[in-house]
């Protein structure tokens, strides 16, 4: 039994989970840092409790403070969402030790899968195929460099350096040739230390031209472990996914059952409980290799929900409460695509952008789902991840899903902060995206010198006229909030003329 769920997260995923709690008839507790006061997620909970402290370490990563709030407000379950503490085995253990339900797998499963090198070894032992590569034990920079240089001769180029504690593309470096190896190792190590406090880096062969295909798994405490089909997430920039779909366009029922079985094997190898994702690389010959397992709900989980009809977050709540999962046999219906809307400048190396959401007008209509944690009038700050929303469509077939996504992106208007909407819209027209011939290098291949918006002089002329009319008619002017003096942020608009398109 669970009555009250504390959601140890913020933004879009906190909204997703809090809404599921409301639908399940559960009480919920949101926790928020002072710079998140008034955010949408704080309004969706039964109660919202402020966190003390300034930095992320003092707030959303502060285990003691979160557990103290859980205890004093009677939470009997904690949902970590993704990011933050979601894959921290020590936190999962502390939650369980405090007598609170942990909505996720056991600390041991998190530990075995969270350390990428240990996960590789566990999967090899379980008979799940892994990418050719080598684990590197050294932690000292000089020893690590010499060990990786030596391993690189056996692994071959191009290769990929990965932080053992990595995720979200952090601490990852692609190396095309030996001359760049040393600098790349230093960079990956430095980024890994900064992001995870763990500088261990290992090396894998970079499998070019392969697809990123992941399998959603679900396991309850009654001995049932199932897979819910795949998601293809090949289209990535800076090793972060931007376009995700289910089913994978090249999937066959035979391949799905083999990959699904491997994923179930992987989950069983660590006695997995809850929702998890086993990521694979699928090469052009149909061979697949284990990449990693994410022991939490995934950003792109909605596409699976759309095609399978399973509410994954609701199942997480059920499983944590000790109930059997409610879903029956796997049925895949139609096609779903998700794009991630980021506050970033796609024409400038996808550099994160900040500013006010002066206008935020999402699309509506059949087959459209928007998962977001922001609304018009909010400020996009450099404090957190720049993902603004996930736009998800469902349609009976892949071509129709793409048509629907184009229509939805055309309707989506965001002004005041630079976003990647136009980039995503043009991505939907790319011939390889249309044909389903997507691989992890697609963005680099299609836009080797970076993407630039391609508008006509006629559109620019019209835009100038609109600016003049808006000025003359005294239209919509957005109040620019003065930044609080103590966080030292210069007004984002000082650099407007150089940094925005």
């Amino acid at each position, binding site marked *: 039994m669970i009555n009250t769920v504390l959601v140890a997260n913020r933004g879009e995923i906190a909204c997703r989970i809090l809404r599921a709690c409301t639908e399940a008839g559960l009480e919920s507790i949101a926790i928020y840092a002072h710079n998140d006061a008034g955010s949408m997620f704080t309004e969706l909970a039964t109660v919202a409790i402020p966190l003390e402290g300034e930095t992320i370490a003092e707030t959303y990563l502060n285990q003691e403070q979160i557990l103290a709030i859980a205890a004093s407000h009677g939470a009997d379950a904690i949902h970590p969402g993704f990011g933050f503490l979601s894959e921290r085995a020590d936190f999962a253990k502390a939650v369980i030790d405090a007598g609170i339900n942990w909505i996720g797998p056991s600390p041991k499963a998190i530990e075995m899968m969270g350390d990428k090198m240990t996960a590789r070894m566990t999967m090899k032992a379980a008979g799940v195929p892994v990418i050719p590569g080598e684990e590197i034990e050294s932690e000292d920079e000089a020893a690590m460099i010499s060990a990786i240089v030596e391993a690189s001769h056996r692994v071959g180029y191009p290769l990929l350096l990965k932080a053992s504690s990595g995720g979200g593309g952090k601490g990852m470096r692609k190396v095309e040739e030996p001359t760049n190896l040393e600098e790349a190792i230093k960079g990956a190590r430095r980024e890994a230390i900064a992001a995870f406090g763990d500088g261990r880096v290992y090396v894998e062969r970079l499998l070019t031209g392969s697809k990123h295909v992941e399998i959603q798994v679900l396991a309850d405490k009654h001995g049932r472990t199932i897979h819910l089909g795949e998601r293809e997430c090949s289209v990535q920039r800076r090793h972060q996914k931007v376009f995700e779909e289910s089913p994978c366009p090249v999937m066959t029922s035979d391949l799905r059952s083999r990959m699904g079985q491997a994923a179930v094997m992987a989950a069983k190898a660590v006695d997995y409980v809850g929702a998890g994702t086993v990521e694979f690389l699928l090469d052009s010959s149909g061979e697949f290799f284990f990449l990693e397992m994410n022991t939490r709900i995934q950003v792109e989980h909605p596409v699976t929900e759309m095609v399978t009809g399973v509410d994954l977050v609701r199942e997480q709540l059920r499983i944590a409460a000790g109930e059997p999962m409610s879903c029956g046999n796997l049925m895949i219906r139609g096609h779903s695509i998700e794009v991630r809307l980021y506050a970033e400048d796609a024409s400038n190396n996808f550099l994160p952008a900040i500013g006010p959401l*002066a206008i935020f007008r999402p699309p509506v209509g059949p087959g459209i789902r928007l998962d977001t944690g922001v609304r018009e009038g909010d400020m996009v700050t450099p404090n957190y991840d720049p993902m603004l929303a996930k736009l998800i469509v469902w349609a009976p077939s892949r071509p129709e899903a793409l048509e629907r996504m184009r229509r939805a992106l055309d309707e989506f208007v965001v002004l005041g902060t630079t976003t990647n909407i136009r980039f995503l819209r043009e991505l939907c027209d790319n011939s390889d995206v249309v044909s389903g011939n997507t691989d992890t290098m697609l963005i680099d291949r299609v836009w080797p010198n970076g993407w630039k918006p391609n508008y006509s002089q006629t559109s620019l002329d019209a835009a100038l006229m609109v600016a003049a009319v808006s000025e003359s008619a005294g239209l919509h002017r957005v109040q620019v909030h003065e930044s609080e003096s103590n966080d030292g942020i210069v007004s984002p608009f000082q650099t407007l003329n150089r940094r925005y398109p």
Partner: protein
Amino acid sequence: MQHEFKFAGEMIEVTIARDSENWMLGENRAQVLADGRILVTSSDGTSKFAHSAKVGDVWWIHFDGHIFCIEKSEAGSSNNDSDEGMTAPMPGKILEVKVADGESVESGQLLLIMEAMKMEHRIVAPSDGMVSKVNFSAGDQVQQGDVLVEMVD
């Protein structure tokens, strides 16, 4: 009515005329709707909706799927284009400086690496030129808008 704007580094004068509900510019007509959108009708009779919002001095315009950031220049304001410096896109920390004062650099060359939002960002030269001054060194904290590197052509 005449307005002076700046777009992509260029000064542009736009003169519009008003005829009751309609604003005109050449063959184009525009109408402000009750919800603040603007309906633009071009000479061939096709109409499209535009959205606009002003943030600071900049008009953000959404038209035909594209976003245009058009800066309003107030008459007499000094738009001195001392814009040759590379500015920090957001608050962060300098990790590595790859160039020294007086060094010649090519367009696209890596000048320095900074960390912001836990990601590394590469600041590159926007054009060929010479580095006249590097204002920070590795380990320094920078604020958004800080001039990191100054360049001369």
